[in-house]
């Protein structure tokens, strides 16, 4: 296809700017640049690589399955490719640009040394099935990281292979189910607080359990009495997030754990918020049986616009034997061994199986280990303390104008939770969030947890300076005042972003999920 492009896309598109004035013929606004789809500028004949021309006469052993029809792909040369993605990137907000207080997501700075180390050929260019003698350094990375995680959590075992938090949750619940099954009865129910992240109930259901809600107290914590009342031999496990999604530490976790253990159940802890306590509290001391750790949160492996993550799961004595394969063991001679199905007999005889092909998110392991070595035990403790201090500072700097439902429940942990009470003119949390976008911020998490109306969950993390947080507070107060005053203009925000508010309803009504050449 050699037409200028496949879609008849015209390079110019008359578009007015936010204020309806100052039209540019390109639709660009100086450095705020429009960018078409690759399918609108690429060609089937264009390529950004220099490979030998296909020799049609060459012998083929494809069993007569040659692909004859056009695939429908287009290519760009390197200059066009670099520019296309650079322009797209400029329509994105990231931690590198500014404050990104997305509650429950721990958007902390991603150290660049970690990126550099992960790219060393010795880590990036090795095959998962290479003879183990040729990858001792890689196995040692996994081993060292595992040791750090066990020590930081005070737990005896860890499964490294889960690919993200939710995968870790599954890993933990499966181990619990395996243990219960081995004991004769997998049981039926997993108890989950209303305030829990969606992955908790979804995971329990995926593992074949019935999910029941645990009520919360007015102060935003698990209602221990109600929970105890529900505990019975049909309860396989409770899944509790601690610090919880309201940003509070579950004071009575230990009591809960003991009660659950009493009825023969297990305690799963969602460790997504580990950043608040890392280096200061060991979940193992709280009676946890299984907990996943999001390396892409607490240990700063980059979120990358939605992943990849890594969700190792630490286990108590009781569950250790059921952990999945593979894992790394250090031999007497100091060499490292990857224990797979092949060698399973050697241990974890009761392993419930395998979570994924190969051995987990190596690229994240190297980053997380680099992060841990950089911070050390003292630095990690400081991480938790500064994260919690920043969150409390924000809570106390905003509670006077913004509804803070749990402000009286004591100090918050690493995130501050607010609600949209008293907003004027029918304005909502969403409007405030969009107003913050114009001010140059990524909004906090909105409408989660579900237990608070118009919830706004603000997680500053420890990598923000006081000056940065002070500016955010000023901006947040400014927009909040507009919201309380019912400022109409806020309904239209954002004004300055690459796009105004997008029509999500239309998107869902008749989904357009792939590009199609417009009919001639």
């Amino acid at each position, binding site marked *: 296809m050699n037409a200028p492009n496949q879609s008849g896309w015209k390079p110019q598109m008359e578009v007015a700017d936010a204020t309806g004035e100052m039209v540019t013929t390109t639709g660009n606004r100086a450095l705020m640049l429009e960018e078409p789809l690759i399918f609108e500028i690429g060609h089937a004949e264009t390529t950004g690589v220099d490979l030998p021309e296909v020799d049609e006469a060459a012998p083929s*052993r494809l069993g007569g399955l040659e692909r004859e029809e056009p695939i429908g792909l287009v290519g760009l040369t390197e200059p066009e490719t670099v520019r296309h993605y650079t322009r797209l990137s400029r329509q994105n907000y990231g931690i590198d640009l500014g404050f990104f207080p997305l509650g429950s997501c721990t958007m902390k700075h991603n150290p660049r040394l970690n990126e550099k180390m992960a790219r060393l050929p010795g880590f990036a260019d090795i095959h998962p099935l290479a003879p183990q003698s040729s990858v001792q350094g890689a196995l040692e990375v996994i081993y060292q990281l595992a040791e750090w995680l066990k020590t930081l959590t005070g737990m005896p075992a860890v499964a490294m292979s889960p690919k993200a938090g939710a*995968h870790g*949750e599954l890993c933990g619940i499966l181990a619990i189910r395996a243990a219960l099954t081995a004991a004769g009865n997998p049981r039926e129910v997993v108890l989950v607080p209303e305030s829990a992240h969606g992955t908790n109930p979804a995971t329990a259901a995926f593992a074949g359990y019935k999910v029941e809600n645990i009520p919360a107290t007015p102060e935003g914590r698990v209602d221990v009495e109600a929970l105890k009342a529900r505990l019975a031999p049909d309860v396989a496990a409770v899944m509790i997030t601690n610090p919880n999604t309201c940003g509070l530490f579950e004071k009575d976790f230990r009591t809960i754990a003991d009660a659950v253990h009493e009825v023969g159940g297990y305690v799963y802890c969602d460790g997504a918020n580990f950043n608040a306590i890392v280096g*200061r509290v060991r979940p193992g001391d709280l009676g946890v049986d299984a907990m996943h750790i*999001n390396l892409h949160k607490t240990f700063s492996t980059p979120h990358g616009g*939605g992943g990849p993550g890594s969700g190792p799961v630490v286990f108590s004595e009781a569950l250790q034997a059921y952990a999945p394969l593979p894992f790394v063991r250090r031999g007497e001679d100091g060499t490292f061994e990857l224990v797979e199905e092949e060698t399973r007999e050697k241990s974890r005889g009761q392993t419930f199986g395998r979570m994924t092909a190969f051995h987990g998110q190596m690229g994240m392991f190297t980053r997380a280990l680099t992060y841990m070595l950089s911070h050390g035990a003292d630095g990690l403790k400081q991480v938790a303390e500064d994260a919690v201090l920043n969150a409390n500072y924000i809570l106390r700097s905003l509670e006077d104008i913004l509804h803070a439902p749990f402000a009286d429940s004591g100090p918050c942990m690493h995130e501050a939770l607010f609600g949209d009470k008293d907003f004027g003119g029918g304005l909502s949390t969403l409007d405030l969030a969009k107003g913050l976008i114009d001010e140059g911020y990524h909004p906090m998490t909105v409408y989660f947890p579900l237990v608070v109306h118009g919830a706004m969950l603000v997680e500053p993390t420890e990598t923000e300076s006081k000056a940065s947080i002070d500016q955010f507070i000023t901006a947040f107060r400014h927009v909040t005042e507009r919201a309380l005053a019912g400022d109409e203009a806020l309904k239209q925000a954002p004004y300055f972003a690459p796009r*105004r508010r997008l029509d999500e309803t239309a998107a869902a009504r008749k989904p357009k999920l792939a590009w199609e050449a417009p009919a001639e």
Partner: protein
Amino acid sequence: MRYLPLTDTDREEMLAKCGASSIDDLFVDVPEVARLDGPIRDLPMHASEMAVERHMKELAGKNLAAEATPFFLGAGAYRHHIPASVDTVISRGEFLTAYTPYQPEIAQGTLQMLFEFQTQVARLYGCAVANASLYDGSTACWEAVAMATRVTRRNRAVLSGSLHPHYAQVVKTMAQFTGDEIATAQPAITPEPNLDTLTSRIDEDTACVVVQYPDILGRVCDLSTVAEAAHAKGALLVVVNTEPVALGALKSPGEMGADIVVGEGQALGVGLQFGGPYLGLFAVRDPKHVRQMPGRLCGETVDAEGKRGFVLTLSTREQHIRREKATSNICTNSGLCALAFTTHMTLLGEKGLRQLAAENHRLACLAADRLEKVPGVSLLNHAFFNEFTVMLEGKPAREIVRDLADRGILGGVSLGRLYPGVEALEHALLVAVTENTTEDEIETLASELEAVLTQETQMEPAQ
């Protein structure tokens, strides 16, 4: 601490604002039992960038990087040349340090990229719709089986014997808890997969039949008959692909009637990375199945001014809305790997991908012919793309692989490692060849393999 901006004065001022006299006041809710006095013992203290870099480089130095040796490993992870500009793109802070695009007005970069990615994957697979990625091929395979059970309301899955054993393991692991029944088999060591035995296993309770293409032995064959057989019984055909480059030369699964196509996308843009992070690809041929798909979907829409824009859509399938009724529990996926994949694919384009596939096949044919000439080596496959199985006389393949490694050659994957205890596979070696392989390296493998095979058997140290 180079990563912690608060100064001591800042901390004092902020504690005061919080009415706290010390940081401990903010941790009062932690029960006594769980409080630690100082930094955790048995762990080192913070270290300079210089010191950490030395430590990590030392560890990296203990690994034999593929670039430093003749390299023939595959079995679900392939080593292709990644253009330098791919790293430039994924290193852009705006991509690297962004979160899932929950605020679309300031996430159009990620969203448009995902829309382009979904389109590329759908077209590569010959499908209508692809999602915004899953963890990897093996978990995507399980998600496909789970989806098939939802779509067909049946709970029995038939796995081809020549499905990657790790993938089969993952499916079996998950199924044992969901109560789904998984019918598996061992790969038959035949020049061509025996589809009749496979189709014969499909019955009225079968939700789906899962076939890998090219399969774990590198074999390729037309799956249309399997599709027909499955559809005849009201089951879905799930096709698994672990080498996307193959589809630059081979008919797409969609064209052969696959209902769900899943696969591993690592081969493009992502690299080996010792197994992760990788990229789960997931697509469906028939748009009517979209609402049963797992994972995120990016869709086109317009903004308040009528400008085209993109958003995450159909979220009512997902855990954050549907909770226990979600189609999957996945949240974080493989966003940045999807970016690497789509960037590499954009650089290739239709032309480049076909050239890349042709070059891979050319070199693989060369290697197969050459290895067949080695005494004691016989080629199993009739047809293959860039990976094939050879049967070795004498020692088990696992020992041969170690012998070759001792000679600085990563000569292939022994099926014995993947199928512990399966006699029939002990002597099978899986050899993968890509554009990165030189003809010299093929020659080296052949001659060294000959040397190893002819040297009298001797005990090797355990791997």
